[in-house]
């Protein structure tokens, strides 16, 4: 409500925030490093101890998850331009771009899959005649490599412009209707369109092809919608965390900004469940074995069904119920918790999508997979450090936010 906004304005006008240059201290870097080492060790050990399959499963799951988060956040930033969003000044843009460096890391980690291909892709060991044209090692790595590469290049081109002065100036509200700089008007759509294409491809190649008989036309869309949501959620979580660490009057103390982040988490969680339901009901009703088995084995059969339920609870039920009210959206603790749980849920969802195809009867989650995941998290955090600093600077710059915020 605009009245509160005015209050916020007044307050901010009164006291400008303390400018902060960097949030990620040596401790964090060290911690991240440690995690990476742990993960690497666990991975190597697993490979040497003949538990390679389990290691590669974890590798794939985390790769998908963290790539999704990083890319989703960048796309969020680009879509802010497309919808000409000015509710948070330049900060939301920085927030979205913070995790981008992992795109390159992920790009290279992707090729690591090559060494685990025979353990991950059933069709490598038992080629399928009809699908051989699409499902064959060289083609798969070529196309997905190129796709991820292109995605990273586009994202970084976009980010460079987005951090430029032109874009920054635009994000500050004015009285005129004006469009963001031309280069942004070109790159933002490119990133968005590319995202849909590339992540559909990833979904088909790195998830669907693990159960080669199965097919679902919506799956690509569903997958990248999940990525986008995880990106947004990560942004919200970061905002909540930084809010406490940036001192007085940083942007995240502005309830309306949190409200808007909360709305996004809420809205796209609903969109995710919509896509999930759209797939489920069609397959449930169609009753075609080639489609149903994928769902039946995950949702209707032990040991996976509890996990599937957990995904829905974490990704939809909790955000939907908790974030329904305005007050909750504006309450950092709630928003933070929900986002954290949501991210966990999304990780779990990737896990449930991938692993049952490889080991149907048992959940192979254990120390190995845990540590490998930790390792990936470490990489992710480390790669995010510079970006987070930028966020801190923006959030404490005290720049006015657009008047379209409520």
């Amino acid at each position, binding site marked *: 409500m605009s009245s509160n906004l005015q209050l916020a304005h007044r307050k901010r006008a009164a006291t400008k925030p303390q400018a902060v240059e960097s949030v990620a201290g040596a401790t964090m870097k060290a911690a991240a490093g440690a995690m990476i080492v742990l993960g690497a060790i666990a991975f190597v050990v697993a490979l040497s101890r003949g538990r390679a399959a389990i290691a590669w499963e974890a590798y794939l799951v985390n790769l998908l998850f963290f790539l999704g988060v990083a890319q989703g956040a960048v796309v969020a930033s680009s879509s802010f331009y497309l919808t000409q969003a000015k509710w948070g000044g330049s900060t939301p843009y920085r927030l979205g771009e913070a995790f981008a460096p992992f795109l390159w890391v992920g790009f290279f980690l992707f090729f690591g899959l090559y060494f685990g291909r025979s353990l991950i892709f059933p069709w490598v060991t038992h080629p399928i005649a009809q699908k051989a044209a699409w499902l064959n090692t060289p083609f798969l790595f070529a196309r997905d490599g190129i796709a991820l590469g292109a995605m990273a290049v586009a994202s970084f081109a976009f980010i460079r412009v987005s951090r430029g002065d032109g874009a920054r100036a635009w994000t500050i509200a004015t009285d005129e209707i004006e469009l963001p700089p031309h280069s942004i008007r070109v790159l933002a759509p490119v990133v968005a369109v590319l995202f849909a294409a590339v992540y559909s491809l990833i979904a088909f190649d790195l998830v669907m092809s693990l159960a080669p008989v199965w097919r679902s036309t919506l799956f690509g869309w569903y997958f990248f919608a999940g990525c986008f949501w995880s990106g947004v959620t990560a942004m919200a979580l970061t905002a909540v965390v930084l809010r406490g660490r940036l001192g007085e009057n940083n942007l995240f103390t502005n309830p309306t900004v949190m409200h808007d982040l909360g709305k996004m988490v809420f809205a796209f969680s609903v969109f995710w469940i919509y896509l999930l339901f759209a797939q489920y009901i069609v397959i449930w*009703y169609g009753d*075609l074995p080639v489609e149903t088995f994928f769902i039946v084995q995950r949702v209707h059969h032990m040991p996976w069904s509890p996990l599937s339920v957990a995904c829905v609870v974490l990704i939809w039920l909790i955000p939907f119920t908790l974030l329904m009210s305005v007050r909750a959206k504006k309450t950092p603790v709630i928003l933070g918790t929900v986002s954290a749980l949501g991210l966990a849920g999304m990780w779990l969802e990737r896990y449930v999508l991938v692993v049952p195809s490889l080991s149907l009867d048992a959940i192979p989650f254990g120390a190995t997979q845990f540590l490998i995941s930790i390792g990936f998290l470490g990489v992710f955090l480390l790669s995010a450090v510079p970006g987070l600093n930028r966020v801190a600077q923006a959030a404490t710059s005290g720049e006015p936010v657009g008047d379209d915020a409520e």
Partner: protein
Amino acid sequence: MREGPSISRRSFIKLAATAGAAAAIPGCEPAARKLIPYVVPDENVVPGVPSFFATTCSECPAGCGVVARIREGRVVKLEGNPADPIGQGSLCARGQAALQGLYNPDRLAHPQVRGGDGAMRTVWWDEADKMLGDRLGAASKAGRDRVAFFGSPQGPTLRKIALAFLGAYGSSRAIFYEAVNQEPARVAAKTIFGRRDLPSYRIDQAEVLISFGADFLETWQSPVELARQYSLFRTPRKRRGRLTIGRAIYVGPRLSMTASKCDDWIATAPGAEADVAWSVLNVLVKQRWVSQNSGFDLAALSKAVANFDPAATSARTGVPVETITRLGETFGKADGALAIAGTDDSSAHLAAMILNAVTGNFGKTVMFFEGSPAEETSTPDEVDAALDAMRDGGIDVLFVAGANPVFTMPASARVAEAIEKVPFVVWAGGVPDETAATASLLLPAHHPLESWRDTAPRAGIRGLGQPVMQPVFDSKAVGDILLAAAARSSSAKLPWASAAAAVKAEWLALAPKAGGADPEDFWVSVRREGGLYEEQHLSALSLDTSPFKAPVPPAAQAELSVYAYPHIFLYDGRGADKPWLQELPEPVTQIVWDSWAEIHPETARKLGVAKDDIIEIKTEHGAIEAPVLVESTVRPGVIAVPLGQGHRAYGRFAKDVGANAWAILAAGATSAAATARATGKIRRLVSPLGKSDMMGRSIVEAMSIEQLARGVVPQSEAEEVTGPFEIYPPWKYPGHKWGMTIDVNACTGCSACVTACYAENNVPTVGKDGVDNGRIMSWIRIERYFPPANEAAQAPQLYLAPMLCQQCSHAPCEPVCPVFASYHTEEGLNGQVYNRCVGTRYCENNCPYKVRRFNWFVPQWPAPLNLQLNPDVTVRSAGVMEKCTFCVQRIQFAELNARTEDRELRDGEILTACQQACPTRAISFGDSNDPASAMMRRREDNKLRGYRVLEELNTQPSITYLRDLYREKGKA
């Protein structure tokens, strides 16, 4: 034509009254007594409860026994008579369609007289009788043989009456004519055995069958009986240690339905079959593949067949030498072989008989019996004599009954002009036909189902035809007309008061044969049994091995010839007035409501025509026009045209449909040299069929007998789903769960099931345009697919199988219905509640088998066709979806009986209409919850052949098909 009293309405009221009256005070109501079938004591008529009467079928000379199902005094369905050794409870499409002859709306309602201006005038019977009597009297006074009777064989008794009738007028000019007759066979039999009667066949006793142009599954001799034998012949059986099926070869110009069920079709020009037959004999004799005690003088024989060295024959007929030699070998080496011929020249028949004889198969696969019935049809000479007499004005009165010479007699007979010369032609029959159009007096005659009659189809079998209901129209039995006339205007005293009396007298005379039972008991029993069925005794054959007239190889064939064959449903043309038969797709071409010229693509190229182009086919006898059907189901250089269409009268359903092929044939011939030219006109040949290519889908499946012997199941190359995939909890069917097993190998495509379904379930016909607009209503259809050229060697010649509602357990049609009109019964049926249906048509969209039918308009049954409607089945209105429900009304009926009799339902107690009609027992129905049921056992015993249509959709059909069987080509 002036309106006579509206009969259909009257009879309808009458019949309605029957039910009402019977319901009120069974039997006591005089009106009711007059109206109920008088062979039944009144108290037997209980409304809602059917009564059954045994009678015989008169639609073709095969003379199958029939059981008529009567409800409230009207016959609603004809079924095979289980007691009858010929039909054994099955009935072909034509036989069942007799009902639509009985209830045909175009039947003559009253006697009519042709005025001077040629217009017809409706008169009452007494006037008609008087006129007839006077004319007959005058004629008999004018001299001998001035009265002629022209009819078709209608059983011994009627024959007696007819002859007596003529006798009364001092004449003997009786012609009993069958357009599709066995004359060539009789001639052959005469030549070699010195007897003109016809042998009986036991295909099932043979190991090899060669048919020289005999469509024994369609129209040749006794199709129902032979089809059943053939299915046994084709059933996998251990023969000399190997699991095999009988090997059948068809030699003829066209891939008829019969040919398509054989292993090989050897395409010859019409007339060349004999050549091949003799050549095969040549091989046999040369190779000494003959039985030692056949009694033939082989030397003489080999001399006789000298002209038929395979090479020579091959040169003449274009049939490869090795094919002929292989034929000879398989036939000669077979343990039990049978050669039959259906051609118009006796030469092929002769060859076939000798083939059977020299291989010692007489008495085994083919046999003559003692006491074959007297020949019923007049010989060609008698016919010619009579016609000449007419032409010379030697006939004053011609009485035509049950025959349609103007239509069915070949052009060369010049019947029309002969009849022209006859001053007074009396026509007695049902639907006025081409001959009626030439008559001066038209008399409505009883339909066979309304009159007493009998048949003697073959040795040891006499069928008794009793009337099954009150006449629908103001008609009389032909016998009665004749007797009445004779009594009125001749001096002669005929022994019978009425045709009924005559039949009874005839039969009582038979009583002593049946162990001298009391005549009346005998009379009751034969009426119950539907006839008298006795042991048959092989008759000693006196083989006339004196060098018979050695056949001369036929002259080189014309490079274009027309081949006319009796239409499987319309036969010689008598079926054309029955919408059921008109709308039944001809199994091979799938064409309805038309006649067509079937030509090979090569021929089409030569003639420069494409499908639907109308060509004019000209022979020395005449010309007809017909649209072209281009298929490789016929030999190049041959134009195959079905007989039976092309009526210029014969009621609304037959009039002006297609062309009459009889008009271009010579007497007794089925083919002729012809020329053809494109007329530039076009007429769409209408067929309910979409694509003929199965596109590798699992619809009609087949496997080779070799695979079966090896025990390998043909695998689909589709990827398999591993792990659990069933997304719904299973439903329980505690009581019955109805299911079907359909043996595709046994199915011949004869479509008897389809007609049965039409009759049982009140399925309407929609006419040519209706079919063309994709609105045919058949609940069960015969799927016909051509095997793709590249797989032809690994497939049957045609895929033929009945397709009906699969009663899926996971029926896609059910949940999409918004109003539960389509739902699943506790007994596993896919129910359809017509009253609840609002017509969204989603169910049909979602039915993978496309077996649901929508009522686009209000269905029409022009009175009195509506009297045939089955009271147990709702007549659906416009806007309603309908479909097969495994004859749920029959299931209910049986279950009700079981309950009232307080007992369990017996397996086999319920017969679905299609199952009951099927001559080859391809369909079995039963409870899938009962592993002991015949249906389940059949599945069990044929596990390897079992498959379910489009199984990958997980619709879980209740019907299991058993794969068709073929021989891998190029294998011995």
